[in-house]
């Protein structure tokens, strides 16, 4: 049933198994794809749209993380069109909240910042929305700064899928969407949070940080969570 087949990615033949996503196949074949919301071991959501790829015969661009492989697929991961769209997407992410690297704890240690450099973003062509966002510093160890959140929902997924506490989710829609703890309560009031800090480690920006991090001094360790996920999957 699970017979593998071959697909073409950037003109090279790659082996794929039914049920795998394009992103998983690309990872195995060492084909780089920009990702922001995806975290290996967590369920894919297709929130950031940075992993868009072109598939021959499909008129629209599809995110590699939520697109399953199919026999005879011919995929392109690099093209002028894709570069243009990815640039636009990262600029839109920046324009949505108040991302000011110079005063951020995650400066030089931020996946969003790194991604913007990689994609060659030198300015943002869209007007900033500058929403009024709260900072929740009620937790004894961590801070949630919604100004720096990109709604990738890695924290939501790691909390429900790995820790199993399910304290986080997304409320509202569009411009009003926010990550919430329990009934939109202060994080410190949460009775379900185990303070494990996995959400802080997987957060790609300075939105979730330990509260003792000084500006530009933040060190995160997402590899620790990745390793933990691997261990749990391999559980004897």
């Amino acid at each position, binding site marked *: 049933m699970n017979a593998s087949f071959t697909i073409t990615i950037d003109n090279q033949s790659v082996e794929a198994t039914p049920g795998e996503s394009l992103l998983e196949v690309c990872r195995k074949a060492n084909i780089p794809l920009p990702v922001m919301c995806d975290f290996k071991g967590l369920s894919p959501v297709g929130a950031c749209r940075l992993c868009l790829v072109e598939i021959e015969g499909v008129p629209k661009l599809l995110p590699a993380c939520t697109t399953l492989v199919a026999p005879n697929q011919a995929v392109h991961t690099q093209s002028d069109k894709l570069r243009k769209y990815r640039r636009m997407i990262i600029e839109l992410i920046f324009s949505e909240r108040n991302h000011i690297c110079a005063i951020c704890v995650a400066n030089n240690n931020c996946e969003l910042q790194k991604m913007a450099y990689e994609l060659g973003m030198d300015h943002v062509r869209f007007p900033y929305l500058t929403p009024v966002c709260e900072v929740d510093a009620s937790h004894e160890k961590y801070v949630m700064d919604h100004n720096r959140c990109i709604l990738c929902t890695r924290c939501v997924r790691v909390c429900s899928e790995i820790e199993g506490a399910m304290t986080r989710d997304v*409320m509202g829609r569009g411009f009003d969407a926010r990550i919430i703890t329990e009934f939109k309560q202060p994080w410190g009031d949460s009775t379900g949070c185990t303070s494990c800090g996995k959400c802080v480690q997987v957060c790609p920006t300075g939105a979730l940080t330990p509260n003792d991090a000084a500006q530009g001094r933040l060190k995160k360790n997402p590899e620790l969570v990745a390793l933990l996920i691997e261990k749990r999957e391999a559980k004897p």
Partner: protein
Amino acid sequence: MSSGLNRLTDLEKPATEDARLKRIQTALKRYDARPDALIEILHIVEESYGYVPLWMMALLAKEMKVPPSRIYGVVTFYHFFSLKPKGEHTCVVCTGTACHVRGSQRVLNDIEDEFSVRAGETTPDGKLGLQTARCLGCCSLGPVTVIDNEIIPKSEPEKIVALIHEKAGI
């Protein structure tokens, strides 16, 4: 919408038990408190109370074993549910394209001015809740206004204001 965090005290169930609570408990039993019946039960809550109180969400989270954040996420995602009491009478003005072209903005402005209430809010006395909708699917009747679930076709500002005075008694 984003400002203001909820406190633990907001989650406490009021001491009074009434027919509305009975209705919810019956519904919970009927659906066997299955987590996938969350939206159905929230519908019944919204119909019974006119909104979804926080303490009710806390109760449902406990009974149905659904994470609190999930319930809050669902309630804030769908416009059908509201977090605040809606008012004794409701008035919905359609601001869809067809109604807009036919002058629904004037209807809305007149109601807002007359009753000192903004769209999406309720008058301080709790008598009238004013909402907007994007197309009710009967564009040929536009501008459409819905007062207490009754559709008023070809609404004229003066007539609608008078009708609200009459129905809501304000």
